[in-house]
């Protein structure tokens, strides 16, 4: 029973749990319940990843209707890998959020917070797993609505304008995706992604398809905060409650990056996107500009959460850069960085949230002297910060290593140099915080205040992530294996798709399913 429904359960579980969490009503109860559910989802996605690694593709037809008539869930190594990161971070953040939320969110809204968190998790899992272009839009909207709610729950009034800006930009992005999917549907008559891929090639140079591609790309770029469309992100991550920043920074944009990868590799095909449309160079330029501009912006901010938010936009630049190299190793670097960046940013935002919990502010000047008062928190911040910079023995180094070697593989010396210069900026913005924490004295006004280490409920998830940062930095076998098979799989599908269509055949998976359909009817 469990095996049979493994692909659907990571979506269904949080989806059903959200209304139950609302009914439970009490803050502690819904917290415990949400954490439990998220943990279960993590175990399921672990199972799912190992199943996907051994079996290849798992397809699940919701409602028993064969695709393309019904909605198909499709799990492969790539999305199972991202799903694992999302559910892991979600669980850790939920454990962490109990105290953090008590400080930052009104008591009456705690239950709503956990409900919204579960809804967001369900939406993100749905986006990752679904194999249907319109279903993706529906889950995108579930996660987005939950996200706007989560961002607006903070007590500072600026979170409201940040959430509103996010809502407007997010809705424009979603509507662009809707237009794009509509244009594809108009030309092909199907919504199933695999089926779309087969049929798009029949209309290779159609202006309608190309416009659809452009609209989907722009819509997804808004959602993933690609450089000129990133303006919603820094305010949203700065003013959201710390637990929300930690969750969103390490999951939401990553899922959007995966959506972009999925559309490029499994729907449109690399030849079409990169060769015919010339998107590769556009993406590469935008990514490089994002790395520079936003890393620079991060160095001049005074609010540490804003620093981290701009750093996130820059890190998204690295992911897009790997993708735009159009090679197995480039894509693999992107996939690894999706996973690793989730670990680093989660830990950093959690540490900053802990500081907010004790100090009540996250301006850089308020970090002065905290190294002695909150040693564990600041140690976590330092290690995760070193990881962002890319110091050896951390995951950040692994990401950069693969990215640089992927660039060098194609003799893109300039790109490799850009990546390394980006790290210098990271040294500056992380260094400012660490300098304040360890080398400045605690201001006189604060010395009387009782600033001490936060409780273990906040420290444990933070340190789990920090240890993961080091562990996956030393033993890279799990991440590289998963990312490698994910990217190889993506390239295989892509090649298979192009070859098969050239030979005039249909893809195997669906051919079998169609046969089964004939037999059953």
């Amino acid at each position, binding site marked *: 029973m469990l095996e049979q429904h493994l692909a659907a359960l990571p979506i269904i579980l949080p989806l059903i749990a959200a209304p139950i969490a609302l009914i439970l009503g009490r803050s502690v109860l819904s917290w415990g319940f949400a954490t439990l559910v998220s943990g279960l989802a993590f175990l399921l996605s672990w199972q799912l990843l190992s199943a996907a690694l051994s079996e290849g593709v798992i397809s699940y037809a919701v409602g028993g209707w064969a695709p393309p008539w019904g909605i198909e869930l499709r799990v492969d190594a790539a999305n199972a890998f991202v799903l694992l990161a999302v559910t892991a971070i979600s669980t850790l953040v939920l454990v962490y959020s109990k105290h953090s939320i008590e400080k930052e969110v009104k008591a009456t809204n705690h239950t709503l917070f956990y409900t919204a968190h579960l809804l967001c998790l369900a939406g993100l899992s749905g986006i990752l797993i679904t194999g249907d272009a*319109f279903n993706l*839009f*529906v889950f995108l*909207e579930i996660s987005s*609505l939950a996200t*706007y*709610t989560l961002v*607006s729950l903070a007590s500072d*009034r*600026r979170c*409201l*304008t940040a*959430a*509103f800006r996010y*809502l*407007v930009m997010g*809705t*424009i992005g*979603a*509507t662009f995706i*809707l*237009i794009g999917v*509509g244009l594809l*549907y*108009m030309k092909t008559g199907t*919504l199933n992604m695999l089926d779309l891929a087969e049929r798009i090639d029949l209309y290779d140079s159609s202006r309608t398809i190309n416009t659809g591609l452009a609209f989907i790309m722009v819509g997804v770029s808004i959602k993933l905060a690609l450089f000129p469309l990133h303006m919603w992100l*820094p*305010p949203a991550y*700065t003013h959201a409650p710390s637990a929300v920043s930690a969750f969103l920074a390490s999951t939401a944009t990553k899922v959007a990056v995966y959506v972009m990868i999925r559309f490029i590799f499994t729907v449109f095909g690399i030849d079409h996107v990169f060769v015919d449309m010339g998107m590769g160079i556009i993406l590469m330029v935008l990514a490089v500009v994002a790395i520079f501009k936003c890393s620079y912006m991060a160095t001049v*901010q005074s*609010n540490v959460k*804003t620093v981290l938010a701009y750093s996130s936009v820059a890190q998204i630049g690295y992911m897009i850069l790997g993708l735009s190299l159009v090679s197995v190793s480039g894509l693999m670097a992107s996939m690894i960085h999706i996973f690793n960046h989730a670990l680093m940013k989660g830990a950093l935002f959690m540490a900053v949230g802990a500081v907010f919990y004790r100090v009540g502010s996250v301006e850089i000047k308020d970090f002065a002297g905290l190294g002695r008062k909150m040693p564990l928190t600041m140690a976590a911040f330092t290690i995760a910060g070193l990881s962002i910079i890319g110091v050896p023995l951390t995951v950040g180094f692994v990401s950069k290593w693969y990215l640089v070697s992927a660039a060098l593989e194609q003799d893109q010396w300039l790109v490799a140099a850009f990546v390394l210069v980006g790290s210098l900026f990271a040294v500056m913005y992380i260094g400012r915080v660490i300098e304040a924490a360890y080398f400045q004295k605690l201001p006189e006004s604060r010395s009387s205040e009782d600033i001490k280490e936060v409780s273990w409920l906040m420290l444990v998830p933070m340190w789990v992530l920090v240890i993961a940062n080091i562990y996956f930095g030393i033993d890279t076998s799990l991440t590289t294996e998963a990312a490698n098979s994910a990217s190889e799989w993506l390239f295989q599908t892509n090649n298979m798709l192009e070859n098969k269509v050239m030979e005039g055949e249909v893809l195997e998976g669906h051919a079998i399913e169609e046969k089964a359909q004939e037999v059953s009817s």
Partner: protein
Amino acid sequence: MSFILDYYNYWIVVFLMMAGFYIVISANNLVKKIVGLNIFQTSVFMLYISMGKVTGGTAPIVAEGVTQYSNPLPHVLILTAIVVGVATTAVGLALVVRIKRAYGTVEENEFDNKDDVI
């Protein structure tokens, strides 16, 4: 002529979409922004419904003596999308109400000045 007959519908729909889009990105008042979002989305719905139409067809409800039905799938998608639209509108307007209470204004340029922008 047949070219125009084939596409006039889509062109007007594109114009409507862009009118809505323009309201969203140019309006200074947040309520008007939400109105613009709604117009933008409603026009996209029209794009979908237009492609589902079959000339001479009828509504996709089985009736005797009818052989040509319009395509039901876009209708289903748009039913879902309308619901998504109203959900977004409700949350957006709730944010507007809170912004009014927190800042005393719903004009974008006015509350931007009240906080240091990042």
